[in-house]
C-alpha cells in the first residue's frame, strides 16, 4: 500500500515525505542534524530525553515523536530550541560524572559529543549526583550506572529486539535506575545488545577495559566465526590484538549479535594457540620448522599412496575454514592425492 505524501518545510527546505514520517526522520533524511539521545532508529519511540526538540509554529515539540503534517513549518536550529536543547543537555550533565578522561566511551560517547557541540564546559545547573555501589556479578558487561542517562534504549532493546526483558526501570524521579527485577535476579543472555545501543559509558564490555578507546584503533569488517547466521562483525584491533567486537547496523544482522559473536573473541589471542608445527617422535610432540613438517607430511602421503593407492588417504575439512580453503583442500585431495575421500562435518 502506497502511503500518502505530505509536504513541509524544514529550515526553509521543501521536503516531501510519506505520511507518518516523524520530523526527526524527515530531517535526518535531508542531512539535517537533530541531536537525540533516547531515539534509536530500530527501537520504539519514547521521547524521554527531550533533546530532539524543534520549533513548529513557535512551539517546541519533540521531533522523534511528532509526525510531519501537511504544510508544517519546522525550524530545527532556532535560537529558542538551541537554547532549550543546550539547557537540557546541561541538566543531564549536572548529574553525570566528569570522568571522560578515563571513560571507556570517550570519543564514542553521544553525550560527550553533545557537550562538545554545545561547549558546556561547566554546567549551568549543578547539585546532587547519583552514586551507586557497583555490584559486579556480570562477567561480560561493565555497568557504571552513574553514567546512565536513563534514556531507556537498553530497556527497549532487551524487550523489543532480544525478547528477554532482563532489565527495566526501577524507583522513580531522581532515583530512577535501570536494573534487573528487584536488583538481583539477572536473567540475561549476555547478547550485549544493550551495550551496543548505550549512548554513554554506562554499559561497556568488561573485556574492553583498558585495552584502548578510539585512538589508533584499526577497524576490520569481517564475519562472525560461530554459527551459520553469518553476522557481520567489526573487529577493533590495537597492537595486534582484538580489543572489542561491534557490528554495523545496516547488515543482515542489523547490528545485533549474540554473546558469542560479541564477547567470545578471546580465543584468538589465547596462549594455548598452536604456534609451531609439531611432529610426534617417540610418542611426544617436538617443535619443527615448516619445511621439516611439510616435507615429512608430503613424504608420508606419497609412501601411503604408493603402497595402498590414493583411496587409502582421506581428508576431513572444516566448516570453520573459508570457501577458498575448502576449495583448495578438496582440490588437494582430488588433484594432488587423487581420491574423492573428502568430507566435512556439515553432514552431521
Amino acid at each position: 500500500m502506497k502511503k500518502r505524501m505530505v509536504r513541509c518545510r524544514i529550515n526553509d527546505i521543501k521536503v516531501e515525505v510519506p505520511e507518518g514520517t516523524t520530523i526527526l526522520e524527515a530531517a535526518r533524511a535531508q542531512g539535517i542534524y537533530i541531536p537525540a539521545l533516547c531515539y534509536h532508529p530500530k527501537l520504539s519511540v519514547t521521547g524521554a530525553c527531550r533533546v530532539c526538540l524543534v520549533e513548529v509554529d513557535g512551539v517546541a515539540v519533540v521531533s522523534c515523536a511528532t509526525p510531519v503534517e501537511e504544510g508544517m513549518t519546522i525550524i530545527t536550529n532556532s535560537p529558542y530550541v538551541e537554547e532549550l536543547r543546550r539547557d537540557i543537555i546541561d541538566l543531564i550533565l549536572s548529574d553525570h560524572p566528569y570522568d571522560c578522561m578515563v571513560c571507556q566511551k570517550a570519543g564514542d560517547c553521544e553525550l560527550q559529543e553533545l557537550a562538545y557541540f554545545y561547549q558546556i564546559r561547566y554546567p549551568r545547573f549543578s547539585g546532587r549526583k547519583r552514586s551507586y555501589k557497583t555490584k559486579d556479578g556480570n562477567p561480560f558487561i561493565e555497568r557504571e550506572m552513574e553514567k546512565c542517562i536513563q534514556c531507556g534504549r537498553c530497556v527497549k532493546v532487551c524487550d523489543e529486539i532480544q525478547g528477554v526483558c532482563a532489565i527495566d526501570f526501577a524507583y522513580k524521579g531522581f532515583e530512577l535506575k535501570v536494573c534487573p527485577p528487584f536488583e538481583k535476579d539477572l536473567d540475561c543472555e549476555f547478547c550485549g545488545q544493550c551495550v551496543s545501543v548505550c549512548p554513554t559509558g554506562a554499559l561497556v564490555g568488561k573485556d574492553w577495559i583498558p585495552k584502548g578507546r578510539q585512538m589508533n584503533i584499526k577497524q576490520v569488517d569481517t564475519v562472525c566465526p560461530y554459527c551459520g547466521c553469518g553476522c557481520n562483525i567489526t573487529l577493533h584491533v590495537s597492537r595486534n590484538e582484538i580489543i572489542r567486537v561491534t557490528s554495523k547496523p545496516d547488515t543482515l544482522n542489523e547490528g545485533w549479535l549474540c554473546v558469542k559473536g560479541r564477547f567470545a573473541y578471546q580465543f584468538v589471542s589465547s596462549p594455548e594457540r598452536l604456534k609451531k608445527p609439531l611432529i610426534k617422535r617417540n610418542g611426544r610432540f617436538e617443535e619443527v620448522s615448516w619445511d621439516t613438517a611439510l616435507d615429512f607430511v608430503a613424504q608420508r602421503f606419497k609412501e601411503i599412496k604408493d603402497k595402498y593407492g590414493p583411496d587409502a588417504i582421506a581428508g576431513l575439512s572444516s566448516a570453520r575454514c573459508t570457501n577458498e580453503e575448502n576449495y583448495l583442500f578438496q582440490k588437494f585431495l582430488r588433484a594432488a592425492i587423487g581420491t574423492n575421500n573428502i568430507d566435512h562435518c556439515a553432514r552431521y
Partner: protein
Amino acid sequence: MVGLATVFGSGAMTNSIEEIENNDLIFVIGSNTKENHPIVALRMIKAVRKGAKLIIADPRRVPLVRFAHLWLQQRPGTDVALLNSMMHVIIKEDLVDRDFIINMTEGFEKEFLENIEEYTPEVGEKITGVPRKKIIEAARLYGRAERAGIYYTMGITQHSHGSDNVFSIANLALMTGNLGKENSGVNPLRGQNNVQGSTDMGCLPDNYPGYQKVHLPAVKEKFERLWGVPLSDKPGLTATEMIFEAEAGKLRAMYIMGENPVLSDPEVEHTLKVLKGLDFLVVQDIFMTETAEIADVVLPAASFAEKDGTFTNTERRVQRIRRAVKPPGEAKEDSWIIIELSRRMGYEMNYANMAEVFREIGKAWPAVAGITYSRLEQGGLQWPCPTLDHPGTKYLFKGGFPRGKGRFTVVRYRDPMEMADEQYPFVLTTGRQLFHYHTGSMTRKVNAINRVCSEPYIELNPDDALSLDIKDGQMVKVSSRRGSITLKAYLTEIVERGVVFIPFHFREAAVNKLTDSRALDPLCKIPELKVCAVRIEKV
C-alpha cells in the same frame, strides 16, 4: 542436505534471514533457534511482534517457546509421524494448494495419499505424544498461512531417519505451495559459520564444487580440464564411513583440517581407537584439540581473524572475512599450508591471493561466477549469482525447481534405532547451548564465558530427579550401551519426564561416548545423535 537436494535438486535455505520477519507463519521444528541461531531468532521475534504466528515442535521447552502460539512437544525421533498427521489434516480439510501441486510438483498420487491417510491425528498423538487437538491446530495454522516458513536444524537431521524427516518437511511445504515465493519456504539453518560454504566448495565425497557429481563423465572432464590432472570418478567415503574403513584397515592416512571428530562424532572411544590405529594422521588446527593430540603431525593454522577469504552463511550469502591481526608464532593460513603441501606432493597451485582462488571457483561453479571480491566490498551476495550484473538470489525456486518439479516422497514413520527400555529408561538427546560452540575449542578459552557456564551438565526433569532421588547440582553417572560419563544434574522443566539433554561442548563429559555410531541414516549416513537410550545413577 541430501534430502532437500533429492526433492528440489538443490539443498540450502530457500529464503533469506531478512524474509523471516515477513512470514505470517513460522514453523520451527527441531531447532533451538534462540540459543543456536540467536540472530535468526531475533527476526522470528520481530515477525511475531508484527503479528506472525509461531509454531514450535521440539521435545524440549526451548527458549523460543515463550514467544510461540503453539508448542508441540513430540517425543524425540517422532517427527515423521507428527508431520504426516499434520498433512493428513491439511488434506482432509482441503488446505492444499491445488494449482501449485498440479503445476510445480509430482508424486501427489495414490501411494503418497494412501500413506498419509494412515496418519490420522489420533495415530499422530499415539506416536508423538502431542495431543491431537494441537496437531489439528498446527495443521490449520500452517495450511491457512499465506507466507509460511519452516525452519529446522540438527533436531531434524541427526537421526537414523534424518532424510525421512527432511522429506516430510518438503512434502508439507510442497502440498501447501509454500515454496518458490518470497517469504515462504523450507529453511535448514546451518550450524557453523561456513557449513554452507564447505559443501558448496565440494568437500563432499560425491560432489565437486557446486554439487556436481563426481561420477558423471562430463563433470569429471570439466574438472580435469580446469585442474590439469586426471581425476577419480569413484565417489569417496563419507566421514562416518572413513572411520569404518579405517577400522577395517582399508584407510591408512587422514588429513584433518580444523575439525575435531573425536569429540563431535558418536562413540568417542571408538573414534579415538580407530584414529590411533591409522598409519598417519595430520591435524591442522588452531588449538591442540582432542584429535590433534593423537596426530603424527600437527600444523598450526591461522584463525578467522588472521586471514582473508569468504564465508557463505546459512542463507547462501557469500561474505568477505578480512585479516585483522597476525597469526601467533609461526601459525599459517590453511591456504598457505595446503598450497605448500600440494607443491611438495608434486602438484603446483599458483595463486597470488584469495581473490584469485575465488575466481577459479567461479569457473568451476557458474552459480558464483558473478561474485568477485570487489563486488563483495559492497556487502555479501547470495548465490546463485551467475553474472557480474546479477544482484544475487534472495529466495530460491522462483518459477521452478532445478530438478524440474518438486517431488513428493512417501515417508513412513520408523522408530529411532534405540528406544528407552527397562535397562536404559531415559531418552537422551544432545545439542548445543547458548554460551558454547561445538566442541568448545574456541568458547572454552573465553574467561567470561567460563564464568557463566564452565561445566558439563545433564538436563533432567525434576519429577524424574525426585524418583531417582537426585538433587539439583548433584553428580550423576549417565550410561548407555556404549559407555558412560559423569556430570552434574541440572533439574529443569525444559525437558519432559523420560527425556534428558546433554550439550556436547565438554570434553570432560563427552556426550558422544554415549551416542551410537552405527545408527546411521541409510541415505546420507548421518548418525543418530539426537536419540539414544540411557540410564542415570547417583554417584
